[in-house]
C-alpha cells in the first residue's frame, strides 16, 4: 500500500499517512509498538482532562497493559495500525481491531472497532485525525466491512463531534460505577 502524502500550504510540515508494520513484516512484538507510547500517553492526558471521574491508571502502569491488548487485537486477521508521520516523527496513529459479528446486533460477518485514534497535542486540528480515519475507512471498505464502532470518553466533546461529522451515531452508552460510591 502506498503512503498518502499530504501537502499543506507550508511544505515544511508535510506528513504522510501510512501503515505501521512490524520489523519482521509479519508479527508485531512489544518492541515494535514502543514508538506509539508517547502518543498513547498524550491520549491518556486528553482523557484525564475530559473526564476526571474515572480513576485512570498512570502512564507507566497503563502502557504495558494497553500494549498487550494491542498485540492480542493485531493477531486477529484484518486488524491494522496506521500512522501519520513526518520524517521520523510520529504525529498520530489509529488502531483498528476487527472481530466476529456481534451476537445481539445484526451486523456483518466481521465488524471493526477503532480502538485508538491519537494525535499529538500540538498537531490537533490540522487534519491528521481525518486523514487517518479516511484511510482506515477506505481499507475497511476494501475489506468489505460495513459496521464500524468507536468509543469516545464522556466529556470529550471534540471527539464526539468529529465522529458525528463523519456520519457516526451514538449507539451505546457505557455506564460506570464504583461499588463503594453507592
Amino acid at each position: 500500500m502506498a503512503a498518502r502524502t499530504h501537502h499543506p500550504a507550508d511544505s515544511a510540515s508535510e506528513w504522510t499517512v501510512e501503515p505501521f508494520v512490524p520489523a519482521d513484516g509479519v508479527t508485531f512484538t512489544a518492541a515494535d509498538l514502543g514508538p506509539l507510547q508517547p502518543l498513547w500517553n498524550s491520549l491518556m492526558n486528553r482523557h484525564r482532562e475530559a473526564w476526571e471521574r474515572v480513576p485512570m491508571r498512570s502512564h507507566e502502569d497503563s502502557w504495558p497493559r494497553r500494549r498487550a491488548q494491542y498485540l492480542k487485537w493485531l493477531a486477529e486477521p484484518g486488524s491494522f495500525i496506521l500512522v501519520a508521520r513526518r520524517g521520523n516523527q510520529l504525529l498520530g496513529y489509529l488502531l483498528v481491531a476487527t472481530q466476529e459479528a456481534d451476537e445481539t446486533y445484526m451486523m456483518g460477518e466481521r465488524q471493526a472497532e477503532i480502538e485508538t485514534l491519537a494525535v499529538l497535542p500540538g498537531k490537533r486540528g490540522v487534519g491528521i485525525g481525518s486523514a487517518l480515519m479516511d484511510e482506515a475507512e477506505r481499507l475497511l471498505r476494501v475489506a468489505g466491512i460495513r459496521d464500524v464502532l468507536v468509543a469516545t470518553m464522556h466529556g470529550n466533546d471534540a471527539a464526539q463531534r468529529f465522529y458525528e461529522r463523519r456520519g457516526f451515531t451514538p449507539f451505546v452508552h457505557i455506564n460506570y460505577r464504583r461499588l463503594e460510591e453507592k
Partner: protein
Amino acid sequence: MPDGITIKKLAPEDIDVIAPLWKALLDHIAALPDAIVPIRPFEQSWPLERAEMLTALQGDAFLLVARRDGTPVGYAYVVVEGPDPVWYTGDARAELVHLSVADGARGAGVGTALMEAMDAELERRGVEDVEIGVDTANHDAVRFYERRGYRHDFHIFYGSPGMKPWACLRREEEDRRAGRGRFASPGPPAR
C-alpha cells in the same frame, strides 16, 4: 425484596430457563423507536448468546434469576474480568451484560432486586468496578441506571463509512414493503 420474589444463582445446566427472558429483552430493544442497529431474530441470537454464556459461566461469570411463585420473571447476567488495562484501577471489574425483566413483571422492583443481588455478589468477591452498556435508544434503562448511581463514562458510536448503515437499509426495506417514500406508487399528476 418485593413480595413473592426470590433470587438465586442459576446453574449452567438450567440455562434454557432464561431463553424466554432473553427473547423478552430482544423484543424490548427491537421495539425502541430510536434504535440505531437492528437486532438479530431470537432464533439466530439465542444459540450464540447461549454458547457465549456457557463458556463464560465456566469462569467467573454468574447468572441470577428472579422468580415469582416459582416462575422466572427476570435475570441478570454478569461477567467478571481481570484488571482493566487502561482506565479503571480496581483489580477486577464486572460487566452487567444482560438485565431482563419479563413484560408482565416490569415496574415491580424485579430489576432493582436483581441489581442489589448483583452488588452483594460482587462485594462478596471484592469486585469494585462495574460497567453497563445501554442502547442510547433505551431511555428508561438509561434513567434506571442513573438512579442507581451509574454515570456515562464512554459513548460508543456506530458508523458504516461509505456505505448505507443498517438502520437506513432497514427503513428502505420497510418503505419498500409498505410502498412508502421513494417506493410509493406515483399519484395522479399535479395540475
